[in-house]
């Protein structure tokens, strides 16, 4: 099981370590204190770690470490190329505000395939997908997706602008990449970004008028994950519920059995068992607090037919911790989990969620947790 966890928060990056033999987790290191760390990538291929750093005044930056997070250097942040004067501005379709042609937020980072060891993918708001082939020293915008005509109908969900929050690189074929966008649904490429297809068939959006309920490119998947051992098995925690695909995002099926609610942001899938997944449910839409003020994790082991509600070790009275979409992770063994909250609480489990231990209740609001 992994003995290191990276925690990206509103006020810095924290590295947690645990000695062998069941010692408690401890915060071994704090970096970028006072600065937002919205996204992290511990690259399991080679031990490098990447961190998006968001300065309120000075913009987004990109840092990397070649020694598992002990020392950091500033690399190159993805930059949108100059906007050509003859390209019209796109206005967000519902509020009419201009969607910036400029980096607003780094919202996802994922490693490329094993056959492209220095490749990293980066999803951003306002909806640009970038790729680096040199561990973050240079980037290029994936123009076919940015230039996709339907992008003018994408809109913000959670953020003011559309944002790419999930990137799944198929371990069988690194040219096959699937991304989740709020709010533009799921998109896939099978040629490393040259051509794209919307892949949200079966999802529905109750926040839209009935005639647009099933429109694929306006869906709001909050988080998209892929089972490494069976990449055709994918899970989405969507604004309107939980969806599952068993055919590599070609079609999606509603998972109404999720409880105590079908709303939430985070989802994690077992790395070897595609039918096992975890959610952190909440009261839907604008309320966004745990159901009945009780923090719980929902687990299915049968592909979503049924769920167990796991609460051992979690606060069950007047707890208002919300878990953001990137704040739940499972390690490579599938046994150890971690999740963090907007209230700065962090819990781990060594038994697939049967029981949880509080690591800290005093961290800054947690954006992202990842085993490293």
């Amino acid at each position: 099981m992994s003995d290191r966890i990276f925690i990206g928060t509103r006020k810095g990056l924290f590295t947690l370590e645990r000695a062998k033999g069941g010692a408690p987790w401890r915060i071994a290191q704090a970096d970028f204190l006072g600065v937002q760390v919205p996204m992290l990538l511990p690259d399991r291929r080679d031990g490098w770690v990447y961190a998006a750093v968001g300065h309120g005044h000075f913009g987004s930056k990109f840092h990397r470490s070649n020694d598992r997070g002990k020392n950091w250097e500033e690399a190159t942040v993805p930059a949108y190329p100059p906007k050509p004067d003859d390209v019209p501005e796109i206005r967000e379709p519902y509020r009419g505000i201009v969607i910036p042609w400029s980096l607003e937020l780094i919202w996802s980072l994922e490693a490329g395939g094993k056959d492209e060891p220095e490749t990293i993918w980066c999803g951003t708001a306002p909806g640009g997908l970038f790729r680096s082939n040199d561990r973050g020293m240079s980037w290029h915008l994936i123009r076919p997706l940015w230039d996709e005509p339907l992008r003018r109908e994408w809109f913000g969900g959670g953020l003011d602008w559309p944002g790419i929050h999930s990137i799944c690189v198929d371990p069988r074929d690194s040219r096959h990449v699937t991304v989740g966008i709020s709010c533009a649904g799921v998109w896939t490429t099978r040629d490393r970004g040259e051509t794209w297809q919307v892949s949200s068939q079966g999802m529905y959006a109750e926040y839209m008028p009935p005639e647009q309920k099933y429109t694929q490119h306006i869906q709001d998947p909050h988080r998209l994950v892929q089972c490494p051992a069976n990449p055709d098995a994918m899970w989405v925690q969507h604004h309107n519920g939980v969806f599952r695909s068993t055919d590599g995002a070609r079609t999606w099926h509603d998972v109404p059995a999720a409880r105590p609610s079908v709303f939430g942001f985070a989802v994690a899938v077992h790395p070897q068992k595609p039918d096992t997944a975890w959610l952190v449910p909440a009261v839907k839409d604008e309320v966004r607090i745990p159901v009945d003020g009780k923090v719980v994790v929902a687990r299915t082991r049968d592909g979503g037919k049924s769920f167990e509600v796991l609460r051992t070790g979690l606060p069950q009275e007047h707890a208002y911790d919300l878990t953001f979409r990137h704040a739940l992770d499972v390690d490579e063994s599938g046994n150890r989990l971690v999740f963090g909250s907007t209230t700065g609480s962090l819990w781990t489990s060594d038994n697939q969620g049967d029981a949880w231990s509080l690591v800290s209740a005093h961290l800054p609001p947690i954006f992202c947790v990842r085993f490293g």
Partner: protein
Amino acid sequence: MVRVNFTENIQRHCACPSTEVRGDTVRQVLDEVFAANQKARGYVLDDQGGLRRHMIVFVNGETVRDRVKLTDRVSDGAEVYVMQALSGG
């Protein structure tokens, strides 16, 4: 010559000592500064070359008006301050 000074708060992330450069517009002045300090460019300007949303530039105590193309004139002997804009709560 134009003297360019930076907010203390940027120094923690990116060293930006005060410097003297030539230039007739804010763009020319900042380009001169960033030619010698490439890293600082991205801390002050966004990826389209405009002033970052929460940054502000003063020329002789006056806020620059053109935050996108940075065409405000700068006279010889001027004092330029690159600061954080107080915004939000």
